[in-house]
């Protein structure tokens, strides 16, 4: 009960913070001197990208804690799953918003830039992890935790190789300079920080809510099993009685 109340407070706080972010991002913050209103997309793009990486990091840590025998609790598995789900949504959002922003600023929808490409590979890497999680079954928690750690080990290698690829072949590319948006306006940088903060709250709230749902699903599965055993046992019990 107390937990639910706390989650309700967190939900309320998140809503207020998001409303404030919306107000600042769309109305109060000035348009960028070079990019105009397109720069406002950054107030969604930057938090989404940050959360994607945070979420995958949390998934890896929670998976490691699940694998470590002393800290093994179902809650870590739930956290890993909840965080990865939010992470995949954020990664998809990062790519989508990045493309929408890139079209007026760069010209093409997509640019083979290191961070963008790494994020795209990451998206598919964790889609695979979520597909694996959906399967469940015996020993699924341990299997999922190992898979999450393997994916996490792969991330730096993907990043490094893609980085090398793009810098070796596109040296002096104009796009890398144009990637940078120099935020000097204090109102704009405040809005950006507010957006990062409020979306992080949203991430925490989503994780908590999703974890509780996963816990209930586990409980349901156990109840189903108990009921099935009871149904199998009951007829013989009446016969013998």
């Amino acid at each position, binding site marked *: 009960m107390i937990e639910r109340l706390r989650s309700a407070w967190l939900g309320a706080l998140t809503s207020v913070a998001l409303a404030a972010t919306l107000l600042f991002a769309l109305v109060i913050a000035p348009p960028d001197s070079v990019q105009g209103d397109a720069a406002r997309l950054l107030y969604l793009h930057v938090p989404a990208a940050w959360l994607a990486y945070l979420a995958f990091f949390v998934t890896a840590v929670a998976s490691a804690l699940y694998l470590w025998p002393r800290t093994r609790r179902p809650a870590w598995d739930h956290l890993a799953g909840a965080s990865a789900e939010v992470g995949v949504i954020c990664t998809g959002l990062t790519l989508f918003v990045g493309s929408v922003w890139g079209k007026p600023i760069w010209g093409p929808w997509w640019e083979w830039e290191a961070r963008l490409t790494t994020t795209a590979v990451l998206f*598919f890497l964790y889609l695979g992890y979520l*597909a694996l999680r959906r399967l469940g079954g015996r020993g699924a928690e341990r*299997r999922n935790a190992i898979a999450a750690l393997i994916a996490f*080990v792969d991330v730096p*290698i993907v990043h490094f*190789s893609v980085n090398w*690829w793009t810098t070796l072949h596109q040296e002096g590319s104009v796009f890398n300079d144009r990637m940078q948006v120099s935020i000097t306006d204090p109102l704009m940088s405040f809005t950006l920080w507010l957006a990062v903060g409020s979306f992080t709250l949203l991430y925490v709230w989503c994780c908590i809510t999703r974890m509780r749902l996963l816990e209930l699903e586990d409980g349901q599965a156990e109840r189903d099993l108990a009921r099935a055993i009871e149904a199998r046992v009951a007829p013989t019990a009446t016969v013998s009685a």
Partner: protein
Amino acid sequence: MSFASEAVLIAAKDLRIEARSRVATAQILPFGGIVLLLFAFALDPRRNVLPTVAPGLFWIAVLLSSLLAVSRSFAIEADHGARDGLRLAGLDGGAIFLGKAAAVAVELLALEVILLVGVVGLYDVEVHGLVVIVPAAILATVGLAAAGTVYGVLAAGLRVRETLVPLLVLPAVAPVLLAATRAFELALGEELADAWRWTSLLGVFAVVSSMVGVVAFGPLLEES
């Protein structure tokens, strides 16, 4: 039995099964060949793009074939409780991993030699820089086989493994495709110093994925 001889035992078992069943030679090899032909249809040979993109096409063909090889490597243990037998054989999980990965790597290397001949013949590629191409191919193959074997056992007991393995493996081995393609391109263009840099990245991937496999394979086999 020592760790190494256990690994050799498993590799020999897998290769013996392949030699007798001929699935690798009768199915996976022709698959690689038809992929090479289809690339030529997609990228009209008369426009002369094939020699330029040949390294990438070669590695895509190898990558797709490696998915089949990995699936096959675990399909041979799917029936008649063979995986239970493997689990109960008392062998070290890491050794089983190395054995299975080595068998896949040997199959892939044989495939690569034939595909390379195909690429040279069909795509009109002149081979230079073999001194880099050979180690790059070996390291890339070790990386592909190791990563594939880890994901193979991860999905081994699952009903949807045929569809799941490609989704798990392809993003994970993206760095191998990238590095192996660049290494081949640079080696063919005789820019050997840069080709070695990519080859070293392939080495890092091969070592990391092999280490991950040695550690993770045992627990994953238990849960499969």
